[in-house]
């Protein structure tokens, strides 16, 4: 399988990365080189093989459903580019 420029632009939008026509053109070649490389996986017989979900067999850890942390809104917003009264500020989303 290979991608064309239109597909690259669509994927870039899905990934929320702005691309110029020049970027999209360059990326098309690069992505096709990588997709060409991974193509060989198709030749592996995987009949009856389960896809891996956990590399080390272990039971899912669970914890008590209790409040164990919190009350640190100041810490959470400390690194944000724009805040007001412990809220993250973003451009208007709903008109």
């Amino acid at each position, binding site marked *: *399988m290979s*991608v064309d420029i239109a*597909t*690259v632009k669509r*994927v*870039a*939008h*899905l*990934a*929320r*990365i*702005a*691309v110029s026509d020049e970027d999209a053109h360059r*990326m098309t070649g*690069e*992505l096709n*080189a*990588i*997709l060409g*490389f*991974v*193509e*060989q*996986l*198709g030749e*592996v017989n*995987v009949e009856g*093989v*389960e*896809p*891996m*979900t*956990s*590399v*080390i067999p*272990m039971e*899912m*850890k669970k*914890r008590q459903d209790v409040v164990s942390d919190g009350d*640190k809104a100041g*810490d*959470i*917003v*400390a*690194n*944000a*580019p*724009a805040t007001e009264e412990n809220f*993250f500020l*973003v*451009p*208007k*989303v709903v008109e």
Partner: protein
Amino acid sequence: MTELTKLTIADARAKLRAKEITAVELTDAYLGAIDAANETINAYIRVTHDKARAMAKDSDERLAKAQGGALEGIPLGIKDLFGTEGVHTQACSHVLDGFEPRYESTVTANLWADGAVMLGKLNMDEFAMGSSNETSYYGPVKNPWRAKGSNLDLVPGGSSGGSAAAVSAFLCAGATATDTGGSIRQPAAFTGTVGIKPTYGRCSRWGIVAFASSLDQAGPITRDVRDAAVMLKSMASVDPKDTTSVDRPVPDYEAALGQSVKGMRIGIPREYRVDGMPPEIEALWQKGIAWLKDAGAEIVDISLPHTKYALPAYYIVAPAEASSNLARYDGVRYGLRVPGKDIVEMYEKTRAEGFGREVKRRIMIGTYVLSAGYYDAYYVQAQKVRTLIKKDFEDVFHEGVDAILTPATPSAAFGIADQDMAADPVKMYLNDIFTVTVNMAGLPGIAVPAGLDEKGLPLGLQLIGRPFDEETLFRTAHVIEKAAGRFEAGKWW
């Protein structure tokens, strides 16, 4: 003072406990070495002079009362991927500009609890995506090693290139690193240092910037095998904050050193003899086989039939996980924000400016293979192949193989801005051909220096072990180290 920086962790530990040296003296010696060399080597992207001296002073107080921890007063460098409270943590990316976490990663917290001293944050490939440290926003790191009679600057490998270069150039006693496809072992091999990626689940991933969560593991890069054992003991823990942290006590790895490998079965996988492999790598491998045989180990030929599919499967699984993990960098909660006319444009511009080329490439691949219509053909297929890769290893371990010996890398260090590598991303990816299988199967792997090539550059061998059998790796690597000797770069910087 330069002599102090030549001490291994184990030697420095003994001298500190015997009060022959102080932690402040040792830390000052390293800070001096960093200040003199870093402009050239570029291993550190932030040096924490004041914090280091304050930590060393505290260490001296504890040492005076004979209350020192396992790493009391030992100065370490920390890869920029580890969250360090109040200190630059950016995974060497522009997108995390100015980020200083309000928390400490579990691995670094363990090190400080054992008395270690932080010298600063180390350079790396952006978000640990790279094999040469050239994708860093902070510029490439220079390998302290150069070919005989050459002034050409070489890469230290990656992604933990700053860690490997700092250890090799005596700019820290040891360094933390992480390994998703070879990012500890390949730079260790390129710089004549020791690097171990432990079993998945041995070190907590909590507080480490995530790249590919099912593959990422932290481990140390050090000057010798003993130091790696000492450091891993402190880094590893059982952590309720990481659901993939495995509930097993951490053994005393250092106790495994010096134990005999007599009667041990060492597997030699025929699939690792790849086309175009330089004869020097083959010769090094044969030397490693001979050393272990001489030490009484039994050498057995083995087959890991799905080896060639590990790298292509990795280049689906790792970018898929990365595209998901890196979705959080959107200009809202931390780091860079580039304004746009609406929120979507703000996201797109922030990510376009904040991420470098390699990171964008991997996010794009990951987004594509997870997108509707391609998920089964790529992602599910790759995860099935991963099951087969893991089964290859389980089969040989089941047949009684104790550890597997392979080359660590298909070549020695290459030049900074190598034209062939720059022209073809797949060529760069092939650096990880011998290491990536280990991450896909979650196994422990250690790279240990084994010799120099004809240009005088270091080459490493890799040992792969059963899950949670790091002790066998330390034991066996120690035998190789004793036979091969240690290698030091001639100082030119």
